[in-house]
């Protein structure tokens, strides 16, 4: 014990005399970034693109590890149990909060400490090119005029998108059947063949159909218009007070020192502002929304409370 504290003291003294070094050099290498998504999946691609730009700035190497199983619970548990030395992080998305709420995993979302939020994924409402609807307001008006005839679709049953559509029904005061699917592909088929009035999803999921002119965007559920689609009105502008926030960030085990957290915030801010990275995430219409640790903690907490309330209203959880 004694020897340990002596070593710790020596370490502190070293840090105290070398403040500049402590700020510029990241203490651990390689840094492991864990995701629940499989190679090629959303978070996996996010991490691999991010690390390409992080490596030169932070001067350490990164490893992306795909820990699948338990709808994200396995990856969360692995990171929660790792040493809080800044060497292991988990790529957060709303999934890890939902999994904690829907089941009783060994370690829930509270077991991790958010360190940064990097992006927000905008959600858009889209329909097929042949559809009579030009805007979200059109589709809502149709639903109002034909009670019980409106058909909307979301990719997964317990997803943020499903919650968004249920909230849309309530906000707009209309009735509609909300069909859920086994992923974005199934949903796209039912939008393209006209089974559904519209679907909800991320730009990236519908990009190929959008480029080919097979689907049309009706509205976006963000506060501001997207830079890539300046002509696309937000739901708010169309008189429907609904915004949906889907986020991407990093979280680590509890007890990561403040200087490491601060270093992440500075680095992420710098990387997100770089032109090379901008060009890449711009293609996916990701909206940069960098938050440091304190902000990210509050944001995640608020998000979890919102989702809990929404899932309760849907009757999914008690």
């Amino acid at each position, binding site marked *: 014990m004694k020897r340990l504290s002596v070593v710790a003291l020596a370490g502190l003294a070293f840090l105290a005399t070398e403040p500049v070094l402590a700020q510029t050099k990241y203490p651990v290498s390689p840094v492991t970034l864990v995701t629940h998504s499989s190679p090629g999946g959303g978070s996996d691609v996010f991490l691999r693109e991010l690390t390409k730009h992080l490596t030169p700035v932070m001067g350490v190497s990164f490893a992306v590890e795909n820990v699948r199983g*338990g709808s994200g619970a396995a990856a969360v548990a692995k990171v929660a149990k790792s040493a809080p030395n800044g060497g292991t992080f988990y790529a957060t998305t709303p999934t890890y909060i939902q*999994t904690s709420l829907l089941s009783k995993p060994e370690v829930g979302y509270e077991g991790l400490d958010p360190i940064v939020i990097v992006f927000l994924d905008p959600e858009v409402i889209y329909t097929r090119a042949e559809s009579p609807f030009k805007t979200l307001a059109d589709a809502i008006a149709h639903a109002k005029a034909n009670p019980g005839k409106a058909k909307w679709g979301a990719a997964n049953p317990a997803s943020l998108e499903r919650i968004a559509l249920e909230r849309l029904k309530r906000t707009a005061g209309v009735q509609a*059947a909300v069909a859920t699917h086994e992923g974005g592909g199934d949903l796209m088929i*039912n939008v393209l063949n006209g089974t559904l009035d519209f679907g909800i999803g991320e730009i990236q999921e519908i990009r190929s159909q959008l480029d080919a002119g097979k689907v049309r965007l009706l509205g976006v559920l963000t506060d501001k218009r997207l830079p890539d689609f300046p002509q696309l009105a937000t739901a708010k502008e169309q008189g429907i007070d609904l915004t949906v926030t889907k986020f991407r960030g990093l979280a680590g085990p509890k007890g990561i020192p403040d200087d490491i957290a601060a270093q992440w915030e500075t680095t992420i801010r710098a990387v997100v502002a770089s032109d090379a990275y901008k060009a890449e995430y711009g293609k996916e219409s990701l909206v940069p929304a960098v938050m440091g640790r304190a902000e990210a903690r509050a944001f995640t907490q608020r998000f979890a409370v919102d989702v809990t309330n929404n899932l309760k209203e849907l009757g999914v959880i008690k």
Partner: protein
Amino acid sequence: MGLMTLLASLGGVIWGIFGGALPGISPSIAMALLLPFTYGMEPVNAIVLLASVYVGAEYGGSIPAILIRTPGTNSAAATTIDGYEMAKMGRAGEALGISLMSGLVGGLFGLAVLIVATEPLAAVALAFTPPAYFALGILGLSVIASLSSGSLLKGLFAALVGLMIATVGTDPVSGVPRFTMGSPELLGGIRPILVMVGLFAVAEMLDQISLPAWDRTEARDTRLKLPSLAVWRRTWKCQLIGCGIGTFEGVTPGAGGTIAAFMAYNEARRWSKHPEEFGKGSVEGVAAPECANNVVTGTALVPLLSLGIPGSNSAAVLLGGFMIHGLMPGPMLFQKAPDVVYGLYAGLFAANIFMVLVGLVILTPCIWLVNRPKPYLIAFILALVCSGVFAIDQSLFDLGLVLGAGVIGYGMRRFGVPVLPMVLGVVLGFLVESNYRRSLVLSGGDHLVFLQDKVALGLLLAALLLTLYSLWRELKPK
């Protein structure tokens, strides 16, 4: 086509055959394991590599299906029926040869369909509404009666248990977790591959342990035998059936190789001149499913390339491969990256040829391996199965599921309950349930929706006819 593309194709096929032959490693997992290595490759080579893994794995899955009654992949389950019977009669080499050549026929046919008919077939995929998918699943389930090997009641019971297993996980409509007992491991449901590995591989090993040492090595044909002209003459019709069904099932997203193989087996038996040989080592019973599941390696790419919609897990991994290289499959792919599309066609053609060459080389050692003394072999296979399952997600839970399914499978064999209907139930349960309920959500609870949709009506009528025919055949006085 460059040398690197050819090498990617060859490497993919070899990796695929081994991955497919390992029980527990499905084609999509074999592909996903390679995905991280494709980051630095040329886009064409990366896509060809992944697609070739798929081709190789669909063939590789039939090797353990024939030799040790354990399908290496989901879609090789139907091959176990007659393939293993042939192996027991000492005709393993012949069965493997038929599987290989039928796979080649199927693979090339599927590729031809992909090249020629992608555009019109994309329309077929879009014609499938939720009611139509429900009907498609029912059509698949109509095969149960013919898989029940004599006891219809036991077959129906097994299928019901399979359907019940498929209800574990997140409710497809409300999102409420069902039968998960609070465990996050079960939120995503029980994967069919785990059930199958347990029911086939583990149960077979338990069964073998209880039997006296086998006399397998005696008087056995341990050499690969390519089908003779007489065999070709007998199998061309079932290969034709396999081609037709494989095209249909591959093009409709969500159906896939497993159902294609089962339905092809069923139809081959119906149209055969020797239906009595099925289940007792029929060459046609090996040719039909093996041809069908290789057709799917080509046709499953139709919705992916034309619509950007992955129709199976393997296609989803391939989609990931496209996206890593900044390519987005879909209507614009043919304009934006024609070199990748045509490179993929050429690579798939090469992969089918390589499949035969590699297959010829490795079959003899495989057969030799299976004829080693029983205690070694059983220990080796069980170790292989366990490490394969564990490798997927490093999950001890999955391992427990597999071993549990193995004990159940062993019990089913003791009591003469057929396992294939159960497998079919697990594979199709979710498709049937989710589309049934989705249809009703959309129709406001009106069941007439299943009769109003023309595609659904046609498929349901076909299912009814097939069931009645099978029942008549099973129940008629012998």
